[in-house]
């Protein structure tokens, strides 16, 4: 018995399965084409995230956690839960090194920049259609057009998620220790994050920043 089972397991690597197509693109496109009330769309996006982005290694731990509250911006959903599943911090930098000119060409929008001097690193993640800028080794700004990247954040109920206004647009301040799912990436523990909408883009500033520092940097973004 055991021998035959071992042989079957050994067979697995030799069996030809057709290569898996990129499902995330199609799923994203279909979510984008849906016209639904905002609340339902947020729910949809949240699951897209959980479904597509959650790495195989990650399982929502056994808890009685329930989804309790949704807050959102375009392309971002914040869900407050009883218990945030335990994950570690993950990489903050994705995609290919690029220049701002190339980012503008490939992403189809004009990058917005904070007054923090030259970025240490400029990346474009073509799959997520997202621009990622790193400053001073500890501040990360990323931007995308709604319909591109899809982000879900899980925070603990009672965690101080705070609606803010940034440059005339809606924003959310989400303190560190929340879990972030991004399409196609490993879930990770995120740091203090300011999210806001500006000039048709959704922007995200994350790093070792207080809320006041983050708001100040955000106010400089043009």
């Amino acid at each position, binding site marked *: *018995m055991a*021998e*035959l*089972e*071992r*042989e*079957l*397991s*050994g*067979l*697995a*690597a*030799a*069996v*030809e*399965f*057709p290569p*898996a*197509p*990129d*499902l*995330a693109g*199609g*799923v994203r496109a*279909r*979510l984008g084409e849906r016209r639904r009330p905002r609340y339902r769309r947020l*729910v*949809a*996006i*949240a*699951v*897209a995230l*959980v*479904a*597509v982005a*959650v*790495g*195989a290694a990650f*399982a*929502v*731990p*056994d*808890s*009685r*956690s*329930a*989804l309790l509250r949704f807050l959102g911006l375009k392309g971002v959903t914040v869900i407050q*839960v009883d218990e945030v*599943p335990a994950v570690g911090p993950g990489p903050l930098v994705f995609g290919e090194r690029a220049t701002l000119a190339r980012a503008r060409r490939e992403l189809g929008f004009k990058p917005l920049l904070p007054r923090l001097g030259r970025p240490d690193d400029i990346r474009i993640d073509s799959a997520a259609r997202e621009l990622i800028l790193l400053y001073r080794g500890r501040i990360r700004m990323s931007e995308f057009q709604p319909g591109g990247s899809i982000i879900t954040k899980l925070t603990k109920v009672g965690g101080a998620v705070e609606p803010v206004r940034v440059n005339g647009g809606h924003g959310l301040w989400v303190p560190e220790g929340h879990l972030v799912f991004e399409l*196609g990436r490993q879930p990770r523990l995120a740091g203090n994050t300011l999210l806001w909408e500006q000039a048709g883009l959704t922007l995200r500033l994350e790093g070792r920043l207080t809320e006041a520092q983050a708001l100040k940097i955000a106010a400089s973004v043009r």
Partner: protein
Amino acid sequence: MYQGIAFRTAYLLAGSAADAEEAAQDGFVKAHRALGRFHAGAPFRPWLLKIVANEARNRRRATGRREQLALRAAAGAASGDAAPSPEAALLSAERRAELLAVLNRLPERDRLVLACRYLLDLSEEETAAALACRRGTVKSRLARALERLRGDLGETDG
């Protein structure tokens, strides 16, 4: 990522790559809509696989055809993407071909439970979700399927 396992599960059940792709994609989209019914405490993968597998089965009923599982062209030799596992290295090419041929000829129910557990490496819970049955049923089907496979291979021990 869940995409790979969702697609392969769908392929197994639907029997064609095109149907599997549609099924997996529809499954993901349906999963999005069903978030309200997903309990955050429950393991995610079986839940997703259940939805995808259901889509795949529906497609298969509609088309009624199925491609047989085949060996990779260069299986065993230098398979490009990964070094063969120790288990794989123990299997001769002839033995692999024989196993797969017999597996392909098994009744659907036996073939699927074996493929889910051993070829896709799904857990019992995930297999139950994919095959829309209970865990206990997976166990008993698996035992029967292994017995039948062994019988068809003409073995008395093992």
